[in-house]
């Protein structure tokens, strides 16, 4: 079973520049959470703070009864053994081939024999589809392969918490789909707590139990997926729909008058500019991604699957009734 992460009043700044302040959230044990946010809002900084690589100015992070921000160096290394982290570019060791990279944590932390190590490494490499590439150096392979190798390395010590720093960046849509399926399957298999930092909204709609949104130096909202997907909050709505109209601007936030005007336009049904960037696909709650067929679902996933089935029936029913009455409605929203 995964471990709960409880963040209270976390604030981080570099010099005079505040990155985010007063962030409080609880990542429930064993669930998948996604942290969204426009570029440059300190999502990666948040991940690095969680694992104790950066010290926050204020606040605390409770993991397994310990406050990561106040731990001594030695204890911090112990807590970090709970984590598996997938860095943006995989962060593989450039001087080792993939096999040694993935075997590295096992050789450092366990007393397993080379034969056992080989078995575990090959199993994880198979999981991420890298069998046959054991002898390659990180410099010789594509970004997608590096990312998958980084994931295999993060998984090798059976972590309780897995953090993903933009797992989709630099991957093609097909690989992103595979990766999303892999994340869901992994969650069903190992029951760890997942936190995914991304701005790919398609993944954020499909994968998580919970969604959080960082904007304007604070956590705008954090809660169950459906709550955010059906939220009326302008920032959340703008981000999840990839619209130009709304509080988020190109460089920074927009001024209040302009935001108000744009929101009024929206209310009047006056959309302008492109939307739907980065997989933002219309409003409302969309179906969730479930673990693959062959995987034994734990009770948590059984419940989710049942719930999803119910929602799907409801959606079908609505579509059917609308079709029957012939109302040209605005589509399925707000479920």
């Amino acid at each position, binding site marked *: 079973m995964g471990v709960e992460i409880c963040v209270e009043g976390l604030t981080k700044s570099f010099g005079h520049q505040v990155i985010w302040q007063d962030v409080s959230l609880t990542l429930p044990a064993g669930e998948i959470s996604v942290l969204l946010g426009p570029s440059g809002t300190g999502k990666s900084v948040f991940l690095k703070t969680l694992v104790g690589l950066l010290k926050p100015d204020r606040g605390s992070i409770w993991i397994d009864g310990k406050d990561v921000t106040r731990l001594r160096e030695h204890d911090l290394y112990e807590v970090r053994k709970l984590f598996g*982290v997938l*860095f943006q570019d995989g962060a*593989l060791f450039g001087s080792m081939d993939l096999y040694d990279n993935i075997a590295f944590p096992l050789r450092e932390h366990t007393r397993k024999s080379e034969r056992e190590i080989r078995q575990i490494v090959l199993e994880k490499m198979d999981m991420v589809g890298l069998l046959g590439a054991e002898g390659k150096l990180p410099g010789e392979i594509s970004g997608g392969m590096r990312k998958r190798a980084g994931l295999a390395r993060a998984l090798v010590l059976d972590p309780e918490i897995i953090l993903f720093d933009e797992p989709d960046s630099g991957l093609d849509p097909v690989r992103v789909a595979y990766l999303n399926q892999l994340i869901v399957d992994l969650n069903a298999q190992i029951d760890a707590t997942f936190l995914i930092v991304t701005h790919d909204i398609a993944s954020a709609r499909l994968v998580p139990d919970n969604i959080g949104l960082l904007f304007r130096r604070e956590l705008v909202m954090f809660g169950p997926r459906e709550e955010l997907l059906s939220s009326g909050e302008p920032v959340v709505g703008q981000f999840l729909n990839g619209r130009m109209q709304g509080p988020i601007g190109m460089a920074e936030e927009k001024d209040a008058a302009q935001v108000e005007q744009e929101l009024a336009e929206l209310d009047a049904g006056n959309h302008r500019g492109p939307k739907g960037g980065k997989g933002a696909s219309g409003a409302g709650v969309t179906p969730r991604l479930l673990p693959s067929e062959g995987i034994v679902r734990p009770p948590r996933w059984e419940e989710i699957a049942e719930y999803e089935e119910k929602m799907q029936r409801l959606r079908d029913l609505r579509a059917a009734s609308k079709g029957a009455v012939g109302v040209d409605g605005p589509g399925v929203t707000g479920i």
Partner: protein
Amino acid sequence: MSLSPTNALKHSGSLFALFLDVLRTLPRRPLQIREFIQQSWFIASVTILPTALVSIPFGAVIALQIGSLTRQLGAQSFSGAASVLTVLREASPIVTALLIAGAGGSAICADLGARKIREEIDAMEVLGIDPIHRLVVPRVVASMAVAVLLNGLVSVVGVAGGYFFNVVLQNGTPGAYLASFTTLAQLPDLYWAELKALLFGAIAAIVASYKGLTAKGGPKGVGDAVNQSVVITFMLLFVVNFVMTAIYFQVVPQRG
């Protein structure tokens, strides 16, 4: 790097903190024997050839200067004694320091800096492995070991070069040159020179590691870090060399 005085203080403080961390981590098990051997081999391979090539002309310059100086003073019989003394006490630790810092230190700094900006160091920390224990300590120990050995090499090559230039080129008498070796020089000279080399090796590796581990700002940041690490090491080494020489004359009684 801004030039405010507090910034300079902060960097000196962090550098010293790393030095203390290395000291504290030194005995921690498991000892990184493999990494130590690899690094020793690596540092030796980048420094041996340049060291030998630098120490021959260095010995020659000393021999020429002393040869003509002793002739002017009418003390040819002391030319061997003086040149051995110079090579052993000052020339070889300085040549060792320059090469350890210039060839070994820059390589260490570039290696760690590249790992830092590729997030490898972060990844290592997240995997629960202390980079000071896993990477820095083996490099510091390797650099110290290689420095001590290099110092011996420079002494031998420097003295041999001095002999060649004094005896063969300046027509000195071989017997007198060799016989005067021990009139001024003594064994503590060699011990002290080795101690200097040991310390120089440690300083070069610690400064290089510090600069490498704090590199930021992409490939250019690594270049800057390497540059700064070599400059800082040189300054530190010459200061430390002066202090150690001063202590030596207070502690060890001189011959003659």
